[in-house]
């Protein structure tokens, strides 16, 4: 097994800032900008409490959809005003129309941000519940635990908060039951008798990071591997070339538990896989770092909102897709000569760091002339895509470097289209089984664009069988 990586804290690791200014995180995020609403002031008196309204979130979704429709109208008006302005006789009229359009644009943006802001609630709501649970559990199990909460004021989409409480609860139960040692053991190893669980939340760009950190016993990698093999979750051969991260990720496998008998707290082997699935449903990822004797830190990376996102439009084999900008680090031109093959997997070196790459056309079965042909290209006049009909423009292959949490992957696309703010909508239940697509959005001309689920794609590519060896190399 590889030695424990020295950088235990993923937060301490320097994050690559978006180097391409065009792709820089837009600053008009609701929480980044001052509130568009006149606030109640500093004193949260009884009066301000009575002035709140409970609203069904579907009503907000409905409003958001209307704003999305308005944004489409705005695009059409912009094109129209351009045409009018270029008309020799109606130039003056066009200028007026353009001024009007700008005002409309400003108000619409305000409205969009306003609705988004309404959806945002502080994470403190969940944290309070957790604090109660921690007190209760520590009483029942005679483990003294101190819960330290920071960043309770961090705001996140209401829907995410609702879905977050169960996974967080589970992680904290795990931290108490598996992590924090009993009082006597702690005294024996020279730790303070009262264990500490730190719950830390903060915003980073368009993401909210939530870390659950305990100062308990940590996870022993060799024990995790041995348990997984014994329970038949992985084979002996698999176990040989696991990276440290993959070893920790073993706890997410369904049926994994190190406990021989289930307690009322844990040990049933369901739980962490549910945690991971629930977080993934919200478009987030969970990263684990652990050091024996020092503690375990689990970091959840979540998007701030599910409602509106900035995306980078890309084109792959005539189909256009949108990549959420929140997970795009940068986009660079693809230089085929630097692409190397590792056991059928491709990677390139980017500024001295190995970057695994994945061809979107390949994983979506869109390769031209490939044996995967025969995909249901939309028939005849229904032909989904105008770009497929015209003469094909020469492709300018690019690598869109995406990162979610600690994982990075380069997506090879034919062309970059541009940046756009979109209202994302979930695909219908009939397409729930489709992996790699987070949702869809309406484009200006009645067409629908698909939004990639970057977290799922990265997970899929990096965790596939042959990738194991490679990620190991990539991280050392």
């Amino acid at each position, binding site marked *: 097994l590889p030695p424990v990586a020295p950088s235990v804290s993923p937060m301490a690791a320097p994050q690559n800032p978006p180097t391409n200014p065009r792709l820089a995180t837009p600053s008009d995020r609701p929480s980044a900008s001052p509130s568009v609403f006149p606030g109640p002031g500093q004193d949260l008196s009884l009066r301000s409490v009575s002035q709140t309204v409970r609203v069904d979130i579907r009503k907000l979704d409905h409003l958001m*959809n209307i704003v*999305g*429709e308005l944004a489409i109208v705005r695009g059409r008006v912009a094109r129209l005003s351009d045409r009018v302005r270029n008309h020799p006789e109606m130039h003056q009229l066009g200028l007026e129309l353009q001024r009007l359009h700008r005002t409309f644009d400003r108000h619409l943006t305000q409205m969009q941000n306003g609705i988004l802001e309404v959806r945002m609630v502080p994470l403190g709501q969940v944290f309070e519940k957790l604090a109660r649970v921690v007190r209760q559990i520590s009483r029942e199990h005679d483990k003294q635990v101190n819960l330290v909460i920071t960043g309770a004021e961090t705001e996140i989409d209401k829907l995410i908060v609702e879905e977050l409480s169960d996974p967080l609860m589970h992680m904290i139960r795990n931290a108490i039951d598996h992590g924090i040692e009993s009082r006597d053991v702690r005294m024996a190893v020279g730790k303070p008798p009262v264990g500490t669980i730190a719950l830390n939340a903060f915003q980073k760009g368009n993401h909210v990071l939530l870390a659950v950190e305990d100062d308990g016993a940590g996870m022993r990698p060799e024990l995790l591997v041995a348990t997984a093999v014994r329970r038949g979750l992985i084979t002996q051969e698999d176990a040989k070339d696991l990276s440290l991260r993959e070893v920790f990720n073993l706890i997410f496998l369904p049926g994994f538990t190190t406990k021989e008998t289930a307690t009322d707290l844990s040990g049933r082997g369901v739980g962490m896989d549910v945690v991971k699935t629930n977080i993934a449903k919200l478009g987030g990822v969970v990263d684990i770092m652990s050091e024996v004797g020092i503690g375990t830190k689990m970091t959840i990376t979540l998007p701030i909102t599910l409602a509106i996102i900035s995306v980078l439009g890309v084109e792959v084999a005539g*189909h256009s897709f949108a990549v959420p900008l929140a997970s795009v680090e940068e986009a660079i031109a693809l230089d085929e000569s630097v692409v190397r093959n590792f056991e059928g997997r491709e990677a390139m070196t980017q500024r001295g760091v190995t970057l695994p790459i994945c061809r979107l056309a390949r994983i*979506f*079965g*869109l390769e031209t002339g490939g044996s995967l042909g025969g*995909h*249901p*290209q*939309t*028939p*005849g*006049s*229904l032909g*989904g*895509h105008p770009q497929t009909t015209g003469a094909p423009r020469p492709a300018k292959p690019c690598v869109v470097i995406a990162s979610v949490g600690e994982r990075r992957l380069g997506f090879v696309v034919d062309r970059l289209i541009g940046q756009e703010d979109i209202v994302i*909508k*979930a*695909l*219908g*239940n*009939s*397409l*729930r*089984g*489709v*992996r*790699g*697509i987070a949702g*869809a959005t*309406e484009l200006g*001309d*009645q*067409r*629908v*664009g*698909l939004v990639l689920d970057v977290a799922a794609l990265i997970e899929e590519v990096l965790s596939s069988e042959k990738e194991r060896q490679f990620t190991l190399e990539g991280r050392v």
Partner: protein
Amino acid sequence: MAALTRRRHGGGAGTAMRRAADLGRRTEYLAFSLAGEAYAVQIAHIAEILKPLPITWVPRAPKNVIGVMSVRGRLVTVVDLRKRLGLMESPADGRTRILLSDVTSPGLAGARGVRPQYENEVIGLLVDEVMQVYRLAESEIEPASVLGGDQPAHIAGIGRPPDALLILLDLRPILAG
């Protein structure tokens, strides 16, 4: 029977009502053609008939799914009904239509057999041509078993209006699978 039908077309309300009384309760069916055959579904299960809109292909979707389209801001998954029923495919032409099925419509919402995950979802069904609405009496519907023993679940029966022969489809198994 034939005389009744003729009188219904030419005659007044009285005769039509008498015919209705003769034949019992009626159900409205929307007839459409698929690969040259006439099919029909209960009109209560169809929310809307649309001319084809741009459809976006979805990678990794089930084979029957053509893609998704946006109908007034609502995402709709479009299923190729010909492919779903194992019929010959033909290129789309000017008569191609998309039927929006609404499984939440009164006819299907509470029905047994609807998989819960399909509730609240509108599915678009691509058909070759929409023909007309038939009001079929119970006596004009033959059970699917007349075609032989084992018929697929989505065949609800045979409709026999005076001038046509319709294969009646049950949308529930189609949408569920």
